[in-house]
């Protein structure tokens, strides 16, 4: 879980992989919502997107972290 990534002796937080992954998932969701026209029907789109991003991040950590 949250194992650090070693590149040439430098250790990096695994979040540098998890966050882009979660961001990618958010982008895909957003694209789909745009295409289907559901996006504009959302109440407070920004809240929804931030919330969704955190949910995706937790999901990615849960799936890949262990």
């Amino acid at each position, binding site marked *: *879980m*949250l*194992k*650090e990534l*070693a590149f040439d*002796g430098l*250790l990096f937080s695994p979040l540098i992989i998890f966050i882009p992954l979660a961001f990618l998932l958010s982008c895909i969701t957003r694209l789909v919502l745009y295409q289907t026209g559901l996006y504009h*029907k*959302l*109440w*407070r789109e920004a*809240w*929804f997107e*931030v*919330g*969704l*991003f*955190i*949910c995706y*991040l*937790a*999901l990615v*950590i849960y799936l890949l*972290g262990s």
Partner: protein
Amino acid sequence: MGKIFRISLTLIVVAVAGIAGHWIWSHYLYSPWTRDGRVRAEIITIAPDVSGWVNQLNVKDNQIVSKGDVLFTVDDTRYKATIAELNAKAESQKLAWELAKHKYKRRIGLTNDNLVSKETFDEAFINTELARTSYELAQAQLNTAQIDLARTQIHAPENGTLINLSLRNGNYVSKGNSVFSLVKQDSLYITGYFEETKIPLVHIGQNADVSLMSGGHVLHGKVTSIGKAIANTNVTTNGQLLPQIGQTFNWVRLSQRIPVDIQLDSIPKDIELSVGMTVSIQLQTDK
């Protein structure tokens, strides 16, 4: 789509995000892992039991040795001379004892004929005993000297690898002063320094995944013990014996770290583990 549904959808997502965020935070803070583990081993320091010059050094730095191998020998001229001296002394004490016995036997005969006093007789008896104990003392000293002579050869106490050998032929070594150390074979273990917030999740027998900084295999092991004490810097004193109390960091509390020992199940042959290497440790939680 109903307005209530739209509002509640966003609110639900935000609420779930709150829970998920909390989970990420506690996952990071309270899952039992540490980046700060070190490879350790049982180290034996080798010290001669006699003083003298090293006159034969049989080993090299980082050499693998077996239990009982002669590592080096200390010049034994002086110890041999001591033995010769004590041999002669023992011999002389033995003769003195014989003489005393002889005198005593003679006194027995004389006492029976009432030719010498009781006092002279007793004196002869005590002199015999005195000579006997002197002889025994000389024998014991000889025995000690023989132990010293035997200890001029320094043997490996265990199988292992020699470390930090800078000893050379001709160096003078002193009794009881370590000259190099020996890493006991197959005694490698891992010590991980876990933050105290994570200690409730650590228990003896727990499975541990150990990864080296150099990458490669993940090693497996089990927690064997959790350290029961670490030093408290607030109890150290200065030159005037005043306690040195650390400053306060209101609202910032640094967690202490507790050493946890992990025994490795097996070490793959292709991994070169050296004592002191850095490892990351992840303890498996049953949940």
